[in-house]
């Protein structure tokens, strides 16, 4: 069977005093893949390359047999074309929009944001699923860490992405909540059977979530 992910990318980051080389090769069919490494090892940069936010210098990225990026074939799908969900480390909820507007963001492709009062069955379902109905008209700065994470997840999932990329999704949470939300994410993955790549520097995340772990150190997979 073909791999879910075929990734071989490299990129050079030239700073003033040091040059950082990211050179990663991953072939994996894990539905819950964890990229593990200390901060600064290049995990987030790799996730950004997968999502299309950062362009690698060399290499290729394939997902489910589809080429997302290939330097030699001059293929580079935009983030919009890749249909991958992305949950940012600090969640990046739009501060000027309410919870329901955040979640419905991708269901409206027009040039202007929808007002507060609209009905969208898909959005309603996600609000219910993540127990966010009571918070629908709150703004992101009024939410707790755990609530923000649920909104970010719902926002990413509402457009039915083919895979979900999560950048340190638990790092902003305290230990108790971390454990609970880890379980929740695990259950969610089982339920939706959507492939996930999660990056973390926490060993507990690795143990309780992954079915494959890839360690990244100084920009290289080991």
């Amino acid at each position, binding site marked *: 069977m073909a791999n879910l992910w075929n990734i071989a990318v490299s990129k050079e980051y030239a700073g003033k005093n040091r040059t950082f080389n990211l050179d990663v090769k991953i072939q994996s069919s894990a539905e819950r893949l964890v990229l593990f490494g200390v901060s600064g090892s290049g995990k987030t940069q790799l996730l950004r390359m997968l999502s299309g936010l950062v362009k690698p210098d060399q290499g290729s990225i394939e997902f489910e047999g589809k080429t997302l990026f290939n330097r030699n074939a001059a293929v580079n799908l935009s983030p*919009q074309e890749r249909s991958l969900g992305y949950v940012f480390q600090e969640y990046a909820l*739009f501060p000027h929009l309410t919870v329901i507007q955040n979640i419905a963001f991708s269901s409206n492709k027009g040039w202007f944001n929808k007002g507060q009062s609209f009905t969208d069955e898909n959005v309603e379902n996600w609000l219910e699923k993540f127990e966010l109905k009571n918070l629908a008209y709150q703004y992101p700065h009024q939410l707790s860490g755990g609530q923000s994470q649920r909104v970010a997840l719902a926002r990413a999932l509402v457009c039915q992405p083919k895979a979900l990329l999560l950048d340190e999704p638990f790092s902003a949470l305290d230990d108790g909540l971390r454990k609970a939300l880890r379980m929740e994410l695990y259950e969610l993955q089982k339920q939706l059977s959507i492939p996930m790549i999660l990056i973390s520097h926490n060993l507990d995340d690795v143990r309780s979530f992954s079915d494959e772990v890839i360690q990244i150190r100084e920009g290289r997979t080991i």
Partner: protein
Amino acid sequence: MDEAWIALRLTLKVAGVATVINMLLGVGIAYLFARKQFVGKNVGDAILTLPMVLPPTVLGYYLLVLLGKHGPIGYFLKKYFDINLIFTWQGAVIAASMVSFPLVFKAARAAFESLEPQYEQAARVLGVSDAAIFFRVTLPLAWRGILAGVLLSFARSAGEFGATLMVAGSIPGKTQTLSVAVYEAVQAGQDEMANFLVLLISVVCMTVLLVSGKLVPGRVASGVHDHG
């Protein structure tokens, strides 16, 4: 005193149109400078900022050379569209918008550059087009900073003197704005008139500054870096 009110009306018209032009051009160009990399960006920035430091009379002279009968733009406009901009209120608009352009450009660029990039990135990953992201994410998060620049540009346009005088002259009721009328009144020894005009323009500019002071970027949930 009728002349004073006529001059005020003309000033507001000139400053208003100049501000709308600056809002469209300044915000658009500032967005390009904040988000895109291109050759000559630093030189471009310097040229666009130049009106802030050059004497308005020098700018007025540039405009005269460009827009005058024998200037490249003036000749073209006259020949193909039968348009003459020198000594018209439209000429005053061009002078005012040129002088105050950097105020919108600088403010808008700073507002765009201080936005956390992750909001636009999040929107891209969510499948929304780049044009829609500008209107749905970028502008709503940057509008306070932009508006402060737009209001300053209005105040600056309303007070424009040097470039306006050179390009549009001082035709009462047609191109004589408040600041030019003040000069004329003083020259003619009409102290009472000068006093009234000065008071009028001070009130207009003060009002704009007070409003813009209220709108300077706040810290609450604006999506802007806190450099404090």
